[in-house]
Each structure stands twice: as structure tokens, then as C-alpha cells.
């Protein structure tokens, strides 16, 4: 299940200049670049459509760049729906769930990596095994329980199930396993408590697992779909990801074709934060996946 972490060279980093390639290599290089462009085309099409007036959306000629640029579609998204409320909900839910996961995960990861106690191996094995049971399997009982205790349509109800995500435990455990023992020893000699050692020595050193788990878990929480869909059935408690889905034009109803501009504006708004964070901090996303094999 797991891939060993790597050190040194960044995964897939480049190093060869074009001049050193032979003829057939340049041909493959070029064809590959065309595939890359095609692969990114849906995003380009999304942004391009979002700036088109309705009559330019439905054309049989493909216009990759809009002839006439308008922002009406964005105005429609922000004016006609509870979008501001959904954005606030998404920020509140993703931020608190991520903060909780990262802090609790750091503590658990520290204990699993640095401390000896009966049950340690069993608990870690249980965490890993839980990755095999996707939450989709047990959403129904979870939903019954949450509705019974009155957590439907509440922030707590949205946040709680996403907190015990094993990803941060795993990342922090891996990091603390490699931390030199000598750092802790001297503090222990001075009679520092375990909490002091953790909060003053271990935690300040763990910038990189903290950043990695923060951005990856924040993105997972931001994109979370199934649970928010089930637990928040009132419009004002929806998250942006679920709320935006209501902008889908009715399938096959061609009278609604004009609304593709609005729906593309809505998904542009929804995806921009993730894409920006990804392009600036992509190393963390890619290493996070390569190290753990965990995506969701």
C-alpha cells in the first residue's frame, strides 16, 4: 500500500536541454507537449466559456478565446444564489477540520514514532487498515447517528467526521521517526515534561509535514462532496462544493444551454483556490501522494 519516502532529487525534475536531444526525441517531445496542452484544455475551456455572453457559448465554431469578454456570468453567480454563505461555510469547515486534523495528527504521530507503550503497533496497524474502509461504506449509519444527536445542518456535524483522517498521523510519524534522538535526550536530562519536549522541540522542527498535511487536508476538505451533501440539507448550511453542483444545467434540456456560461463561472470560482495553491506548492501535493499512496 505504501511507497517508501524518497529524499534528494525532486520527483520528475528536469535537467536536459533541448539542444542535446536527437531528431526523433524532439518529435516525441513535441507530440508529448501537444498531449499536455490537450490535457489542460478542459480548464482553458472552463475559463473561456465563463467569460462569454450566452449567444457566443452556443456556437458550432470553437472559440478558445472569447470574442467578447463579459463578467455577467460571475455577477449572476454572486447575486442570485447563497454563494457568499456557501463560501463562508466552506472556509469555516475546511479551516477548522484541517487545523484539528493536523494538530491531533501531529500528537498521535509523535507518540507512535517516539514513545514506547503497549498497543502501539496495534493502533498503527488499525490506522492503516482504516484506509481500506472507505467512508462511503458507512455513511448511512454515520448519518443516522448524527441526525439522532442533532448534528444535521450544523458546523460540528460537517466538521467532525473529517477530523480523524489518518493522513496527517502518517506524515508526522514518518517525520518524527527520522528525528535525531539526541535532541530529546538533553531536554529529558533537564527534566522537561513530555509535552514540553513535544511542543518546544519536536513541533517547531516539523514545518514540512505540517505544511504538507495542512494543504493536502485543506484541499480534501474543501472538495469533500458526499458527507456535506448528506448532512446539510438546508440551503444555508451547504458548502460551496455541494452548493455549486446546483448550477449544473439540466441534462439534455437544451433550453438551458445558455446557462453553461454561468455554470462555468461557478466552477471557475470553486476551483481557483485549489489550482492556485497547487501551482505554487505542487511539490507537497505530489510528494504527499507519492509517499503515502493516499488520495482521499
Amino acid at each position, binding site marked *: 500500500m505504501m*511507497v517508501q519516502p*524518497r529524499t534528494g532529487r525532486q*520527483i*520528475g*525534475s*528536469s535537467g*536536459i536541454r533541448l539542444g542535446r536531444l536527437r531528431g526523433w*526525441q524532439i518529435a516525441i517531445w513535441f507530440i*508529448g*507537449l501537444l*498531449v*499536455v496542452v490537450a490535457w489542460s484544455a*478542459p*480548464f482553458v*475551456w*472552463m475559463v473561456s466559456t465563463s467569460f462569454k455572453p450566452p449567444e457566443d*457559448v452556443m*456556437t458550432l465554431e470553437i472559440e478558445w478565446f472569447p470574442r467578447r469578454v463579459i463578467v455577467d456570468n460571475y455577477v449572476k453567480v454572486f447575486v442570485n444564489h447563497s454563494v457568499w454563505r456557501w463560501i463562508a461555510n466552506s472556509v469555516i469547515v475546511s479551516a477548522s477540520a484541517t487545523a484539528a486534523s493536523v494538530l491531533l495528527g501531529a*500528537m*498521535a504521530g509523535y*507518540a507512535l514514532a517516539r*514513545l*514506547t*507503550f503497549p498497543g*502501539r503497533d496495534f493502533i498503527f496497524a488499525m490506522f492503516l487498515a482504516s484506509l*481500506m*474502509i472507505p467512508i*462511503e*461504506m458507512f455513511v*448511512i*449509519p454515520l448519518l*443516522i447517528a448524527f441526525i439522532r444527536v442533532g448534528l444535521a445542518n450544523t458546523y460540528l456535524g460537517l466538521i*467532525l467526521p473529517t477530523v480523524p483522517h489518518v493522513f496527517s*498521523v502518517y506524515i508526522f510519524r514518518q517525520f518524527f521517526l527520522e528525528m535525531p534522538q539526541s535532541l530529546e535526550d538533553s531536554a529529558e536530562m533537564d527534566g522537561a515534561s*513530555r509535552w514540553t519536549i513535544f511542543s518546544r522541540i519536536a513541533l517547531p522542527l516539523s514545518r514540512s509535514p505540517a505544511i504538507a498535511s495542512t494543504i493536502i487536508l485543506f*484541499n480534501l476538505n474543501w*472538495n*469533500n*462532496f458526499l458527507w456535506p451533501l*448528506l448532512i446539510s440539507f438546508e440551503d444555508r448550511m451547504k458548502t460551496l*462544493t*455541494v452548493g*455549486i*453542483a446546483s448550477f449544473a*444545467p439540466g*441534462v*439534455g434540456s437544451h433550453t438551458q*444551454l445558455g446557462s*453553461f456560461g454561468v*455554470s*462555468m463561472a461557478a466552477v471557475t470560482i*470553486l*476551483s481557483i483556490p*485549489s489550482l492556485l495553491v*497547487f501551482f505554487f506548492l*505542487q511539490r507537497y*501535493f*505530489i510528494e504527499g501522494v*507519492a509517499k503515502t499512496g493516499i*488520495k482521499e
Partner: protein
Amino acid sequence: MVESLRTRMRAVRWKGKRVHWSAYAFLLPFLVPFLIIIVAAAVFGVYVAFTDWGIIAKPIWVGFQNFAEAMGDQYVAKAFRNTVHYGLVIVPGIAVLGLMFAMYVNQGWPLSGFSRAMFFAPNVVSATVIGLIWVWILDTQYGIINNYLGFFGIPSVPWITSTSWALYGVSMASIWWDLGLGFVLFLAGLQEIPRELYESAQIAGANGVQQAFRITIPLLRPTISMVVTLQFIATFRIFSQVLVMTDGGPASSSMSVIHYVYTEGIVIGRLGYASAVSFLLFLMILAVTVVQRFLIRERHS
């Protein structure tokens, strides 16, 4: 008294080392929600599967009745067939394209950092984004896919609106969305292969294709097997893009198991029955995992 308890606790050893009792305090804040949300929900879910549990009425224990009904339910059969069908389309799609893309990026040719980012990028956006973009791209009349196919003289394909194509339309969107995981794992695997192997193959006169089939793919077999298993498990859970793109239709042709669970449990309100169906899916995922573990062990011995 307190002092003596403390000294006695200090004396306890585990695996030859002094036990850190504070470890439990570090673990508990994570462990408690974990046990409640994951472990307790799993156990409770099995119980719910054996009841007739409606939205309002009191649950009634019905034994194996839900499972018996599921076995004879033609929609369950259809949902499982569709889900396997999704797996057979999406998993090879991701494995083949992901490996090709990874081999391309791994050459380290100019712009490979950019290429890597673009291949992974769809992975970071949500199902809603994927669904809405692809409904538009796959639109029968004005979608760009049909437009470009038309350029080659291929007639318009009703990707989302016909029973014979909807599953493939959703699969295309899923491949685009999910490729990143396999791609990155392949890339990591490729970097483990020593460059010298390719250099000596080159001296021996092997061309690029021979190198791919004689060196890269055989050495990458563990990674390929891992990607295929992970992706099968992920694809068996396919739901949100189905809901957003087709809502399982037309005529259940793109309905997956989780989509059926959602319809039965949430839309119709038969929570016990839905729980039983999702338990069957869990058994299927478990079977895939066990088979894969077994195959790997076979190979090692």
C-alpha cells in the same frame, strides 16, 4: 502511596524499554474521534443492514431479509455490473495513460516540470468541478469533443444522454480527474530504476520501445500492481461525478453501487436496505484487496 504508584509505573517495561505512559494522552484526542467515527460507525452499519430502518419509523430487526432482497434486486445487479464496467474502463485507462505520461515526464526533457503539473492538476479540484466541466465538454450538440470528432467526419455521440454511452462519458471525466495518483506513483517508481540499465541497453543496441518493454515495464511490475489495485478500489466507490453528470441515468445506465445506495437510502429513505447494499460493496473491495495481497505473496515466494 502516590509516590509508590509512580515508581511502580516507572518500572514497567515493554519490548525492553521503559513505558511512556504519556503516550496515551498524546494519542487519545485523535483516537477517540477515530474510534467513534470509523470503528463504531462500521459496527453500527453492520447492525443497520439487518434492520428495516426508515427515516421516521422505529427500526425493526429483519435478519438477512435485506441481503436476500438485494440478491434478487435487478437494480443491485445492474449497479454492480456498471461498477465493474467502470473499473474495466477507468483502471486500464489510467494505468496505460498514467504510465505513458510518467515515462514521458521522466525523460527530463524541457518543460517536464510544467507537464508534470498539468497532468496532476485535475486531481486537485472537486467532483463538482469535474462533473460540470465535462457535462459541457461532452454536450452532444455544442461540446468540444463532438466538435473535434466531427472534424474527422465522426458523427455526434450522445455521450451523456444515451443509455449506451453515458457510462463511457462519465468514465472519460473520471480518467481525466483520477489519473494524477497513478501518474505520480509511476513517476516515483521510474526514478528507482537505475539509469545505467538504460545506458547499457543502448550500447547493446536496444531502441526506446525495446527498453520500455524489456526494462521499464518488468521492473515496474510492483508499482503497476499497486496502482491497479488502488484504482480499482477507488473506482468501486465512484459516486459524485455520476450524481453530478448523469444522476445515474438515463434508465440507470450509468448508475454505480454507491449511487444506488444514495438513491435507496437518502432519496427513498430505506436506510437498512441501503446499508446492506453498501456492505456487499465492502465485501467486494475486501475481496480485491485480499486477492492482490495473495498474488504479491505468491510472486515473492
